[in-house]
């Protein structure tokens, strides 16, 4: 702080000193360059104090000084100027509060006589100017170095430079604030000195000065580097492997071994169509001899009807509203619409366009339910930006986004695209909400800035609109899906990659921002480019990813990569999704799940509302639509899941059903060996090993009751991780 005020002081006194008279004995203090940084440094404008939305005790500052005009108004003009007292500056309420001379909820923050105190005092004494003459404007804040590679426990310092519109620059390292995304990997102190943790890893460190942000990427590679030939000789299928292996080389990690056919079979079935292969399908694949049999299998799976239900499920998680709120018919229509997009492999940009510009009756066009569910422009705006751009704008609704460039102005201009969404018919009337509502383009409707009251005209977050449609939603849809908009393809490929690979290149998958960088930016860019070039073809994207070598890495680590959980050097095991597991139970037992509001023999992947009761789906973490946001799904394993598979009377009765697989196999002419093979194929999707087969045969042949033995074997296998976990 002192360094800068001194700097400004020198400039200003050189320029103006001679004719300003006695006042210039103290340095000329700038509001933006000196005063606001003091307030920020002491946390006055932090989210918990005067920076929060309604301020504190009637005194509000913009969060972290993102809005100097607003702050100036608050300090100087508001409350009839009672906060400053230029005639006797030290009696100003601002100073008496900050120094704790009068009761202050935040306690004493600034000491009388400190340099920060003097800065505020002098500014008030100088009549609290908004600007001083010749004051440059801050334009950008940059790091001298943005990529760091540190050894474990090594230290290194960030250097932050502010750039001003007059071409001058200034070292603001001591004035900036710092935040590490993962302090245990790399910590950073208030002076900008980073200290690497004891173990290899990577993270980002953010520096913020005034309303500008810059980010350093810091990695701590494995201490031993491996010869480059270890990487050049790795077999590769496509560009994905190039980018993944380049990153692994940088970190001295080696990829795990490729998987065998059986592991691939189970992985690809559960990933692409969300079900287990039948014993017949498994045998056919194992017996096939053609070189590209994996590619052929992917092709066949992409054409299966289950593909649409499985992938629509991921989008239903994101879009599906609560039927208590919007009505059951609207929910059903919406669900049908989502499934149709995946059944027809509608290209992703077209699907998004249809959704954003949805019109008509919620009883006829399911997509219109989006606008029945999200009713105000700001509600739609936050949803649309997060889903289709991976930009989380909620923060900017109430104040400037603290980690991004988005301001409230940006938010409400974006929201203004939805100002003309008109609705007629019967609105929401929970808990039934059964009425029909028609969404149309209204001729009126505006969005205003909540602070200034200014009417906002629709404007994208960056760049420009191409056209000028009657309904600004069309301009928005064009802008979102345009080839210049990198976010659009990136967030969708990241989402799909996260589903198939067990972790997004950016996590959370829909939170793209400079302060949350991707673990492999080149891979993300290349996937996005490929997706765009394919005409946003989801099946092509799935094909590209699943046919890479990277997709077929074993989950078992080698000597280098056990701790790798972000760079895809191995496959990350995860529990099968609730619906996939529930359908697997039905397929294995050959007894369909009985569900209300669904036709007989329906599958869990076809369930169209969470109102369909299912203890199984709840236990295995399907989203709770009463929760907001409802799309949170729990991927973790829990003891209740283990207890449910073990003890649920419902599952047990299906294993032991007269109509079930065990009863059928027991009554058949099949030998014990055949039954064991069939059971292993059905439950584990593989042929049993010889010891496994011998054990199973012995079990069946020594049993008093063959059917009971098969049932018990099935129970045992279904309660094993090989059934519940994708390996």
């Amino acid at each position, binding site marked *: 702080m002192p360094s800068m005020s001194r700097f400004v002081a020198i400039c200003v006194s050189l320029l103006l000193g001679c004719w300003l008279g006695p006042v210039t004995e103290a340095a000329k203090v700038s509001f933006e360059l000196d005063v606001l940084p003091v307030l920020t440094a002491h946390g006055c404008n932090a989210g918990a104090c005067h920076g929060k939305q309604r301020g504190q005790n009637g005194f509000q500052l913009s969060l972290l000084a993102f809005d100097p005009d607003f702050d100036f108004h608050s300090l100087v003009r508001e409350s009839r100027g009672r906060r400053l007292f230029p005639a006797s500056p030290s009696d100003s309420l601002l100073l008496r509060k900050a120094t704790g001379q009068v009761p202050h909820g935040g306690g004493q923050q600034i000491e009388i006589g400190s340099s920060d105190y003097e800065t505020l005092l002098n500014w008030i004494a100088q009549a609290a100017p908004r600007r001083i003459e010749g004051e440059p404007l801050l334009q950008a804040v940059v790091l001298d170095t943005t990529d760091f590679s540190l050894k474990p426990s090594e230290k290194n310092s960030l250097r932050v430079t502010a750039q001003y519109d007059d071409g001058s620059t200034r070292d603001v390292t001591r004035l900036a604030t710092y935040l590490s995304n993962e302090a245990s990997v790399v910590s950073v102190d208030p002076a900008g000195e980073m200290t690497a943790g004891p173990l290899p890893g990577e993270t980002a460190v953010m520096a913020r000065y005034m309303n500008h942000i810059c980010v350093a990427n810091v990695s701590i590679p494995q201490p031993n580097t491996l010869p480059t030939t270890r990487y050049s000789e790795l077999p590769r299928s496509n560009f994905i492997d190039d980018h993944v292996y380049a990153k692994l080389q940088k970190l001295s990690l080696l990829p795990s071994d490729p998987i065998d056919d059986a592991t691939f079979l189970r992985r690809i079935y559960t990933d692409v169509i969300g079900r287990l292969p039948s014993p017949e399908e498994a045998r056919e694949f194992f017996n096939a001899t053609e070189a590209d049999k994996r590619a052929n299998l992917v092709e066949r799976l992409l054409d299966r009807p289950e593909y649409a239900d499985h992938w629509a499920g991921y989008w239903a998680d994101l879009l599906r509203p609560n039927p208590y709120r919007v009505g059951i018919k609207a929910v059903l229509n919406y669900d049908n619409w989502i499934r149709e997009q995946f059944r027809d492999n509608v290209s992703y940009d077209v699907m998004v366009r249809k959704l954003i510009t949805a019109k008509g009756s919620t009883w006829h066009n399911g997509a219109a339910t989006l606008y029945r569910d999200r009713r105000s422009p700001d509600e739609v705006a936050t949803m649309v930006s997060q889903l289709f751009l991976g930009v989380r704008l909620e923060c900017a609704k109430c104040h400037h986004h603290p980690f991004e460039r988005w301001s409230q102005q940006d938010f409400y201009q974006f929201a203004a695209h939805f100002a003309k969404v008109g609705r007629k018919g019967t609105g929401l009337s929970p808990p039934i909400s059964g009425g029909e509502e028609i969404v149309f383009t209204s001729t009126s409707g505006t969005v205003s800035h909540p602070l200034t009251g200014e009417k906002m005209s629709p404007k994208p977050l960056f760049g420009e609109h191409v056209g000028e449609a009657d309904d600004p939603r069309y301009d928005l849809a064009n802008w979102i899906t345009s080839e210049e908009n990198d976010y659009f393809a990136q967030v969708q490929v990241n989402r799909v990659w996260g589903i198939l690979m067990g972790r997004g290149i950016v996590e959370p998958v829909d939170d793209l921002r400079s302060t949350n960088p991707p673990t492999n930016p080149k891979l993300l860019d290349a996937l996005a480019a490929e997706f765009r070039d394919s005409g946003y073809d989801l099946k092509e994207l799935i094909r590209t990813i699943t046919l890479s070598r990277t997709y077929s890495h074993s989950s078992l680590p080698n000597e280098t990569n056990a701790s790798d959980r972000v760079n895809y050097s191995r496959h990350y095991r995860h529990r099968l999704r609730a619906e996939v597991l529930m359908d697997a139970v039905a397929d294995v037992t050959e007894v369909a799940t009985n569900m209300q509001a669904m036709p007989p023999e329906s599958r869990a992947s076809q369930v169209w509302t969470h109102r369909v009761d299912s203890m199984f789906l709840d236990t295995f973490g399907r989203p709770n639509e009463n929760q907001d946001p409802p799309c949170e799904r729990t991927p*973790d394993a829990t003891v209740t899941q283990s207890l449910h598979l073990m003890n649920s009377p419902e599952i047990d009765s299906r294993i032991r059903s007269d109509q079930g697989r065990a009863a059928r196999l027991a009554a058949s002419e099949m030998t014990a060996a055949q039954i064991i093979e069939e059971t292993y194929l059905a439950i584990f999707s593989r042929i049993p090993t010889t010891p496994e087969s011998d054990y199973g045969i012995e079990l069946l042949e020594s049993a008093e009751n063959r059917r009971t033995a098969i049932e018990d074997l099935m129970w045992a296998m279904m309660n094993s991780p090989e059934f519940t976990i994708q390996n």
Partner: protein
Amino acid sequence: MKARRCEGVSRRDSLMLGLGGLLAGGLTGALRATASEGVIAPKPHQADACILIWMDGGPSHYETFDPKPEAPAEIRGQFGPIATQTPGIQFSQCLPRLASISNDLAVVRSIRHNQGNHGAGNHYMMTGAPPRIPVGCGAFVSFHPSLGSVVSKEVGAPEGIPAYFSMPSMSRSGGPNFLGARHAPFVVPDDPNRSSFRVRDVTIPNGLTEGRFESRQAIRAQVDRLMRITDAAAGDPVVAGDEFFAQSMQLISSPQAQAAFDIHQEPGDVRNAYGRNPFGQRALLARRLVSAGVPFVTLYHGGWDDHRNLFNAYEKKMPPFESTIAALIEDLKSQGMLERTLVIALGEFGRTPKINKDVGRDHWSNAMSVMFAGGGTPGGQVVGATDRQGYAAVERVLAPENFVSTVYRKLGIDPNKMVHTPEGRPVHLVSNASPIDEIMG
């Protein structure tokens, strides 16, 4: 890929040992084994268990333990203070039952922090660690293990009973984080006030004999061949699943555990005293669980985010709520359990001094009140104070770290203890290990 456990036994090995024991001796044998291992040597600590009543949303300090009758009407609100059993201590008139047992209570009025969002406030109070990055109101975040998860790990429970229960749901930051899913709360979502209440999935399905259940276990031990990744840094979900399986087996084979779940064994007058409502019966179930050796139970009670119509809302919800807490404390006392059972009630923050235009109060982390009872806590005292109008803690200002350290110390856990994340990174349980001395006694 080698196991890195200090004991030299991999998790897989220990699991196999566990199952082997089960196979050799059958269920009863296993029971005996666990029972003999379950004897816990007495430790120099004040409490064996903690029942945490979590008032999600943030209760008002004004309308609970820190009334400000001298403040102007727009701050003091519609309710006045009442005298308590303890001379010189006043509570809000919303708490007549608790006021009548204040000699058993200690109230801390001066905990404050800087997290004004639900997500962040939940995390800070529930873990003692401030959230690492800014966290929004709607968020459910976990950067650090919660109180209950740490207690589960450090204290444990006998008979395969989960050591940490949460009813009817988990609190937002009540998870185990890097301690692993094994220390996640066992959630009992169902309503114990119903006559059909039964803790689900904890008993062998009807129609299956115990013998057949045992033979299924034996087969499973043979067919479960999936390779485990023993390096903890790999975060193998299969390893976590093994822990759950072992835990499930213990649970269903323990008669003590089964009895603890059976609230129907309680006499009618006891059930009535707790209140014939879901929260009341959950509090009673919590007491049964604590009797069975469970060291940590969270009673989650939502709906304290009264931005509007606060006074009407408190008039409705307070009487049954506070009388359940009073009944719990009285019952623990009459059973001779209060001395070793810590009962705490709090939320993520206090509420704004000025009543807003919707007759509510907003989030306020500069002051909050936390109630303690039992577990060696000297009763009949108030610790710290807020200013005359309740804006901020001004006397004996304490942080969430002090609160969490107090709970750990009472339960015999060193808050200064260094724990390791799966990647091997060292972290202190709590960064400031000083407890609240007045509560420690």
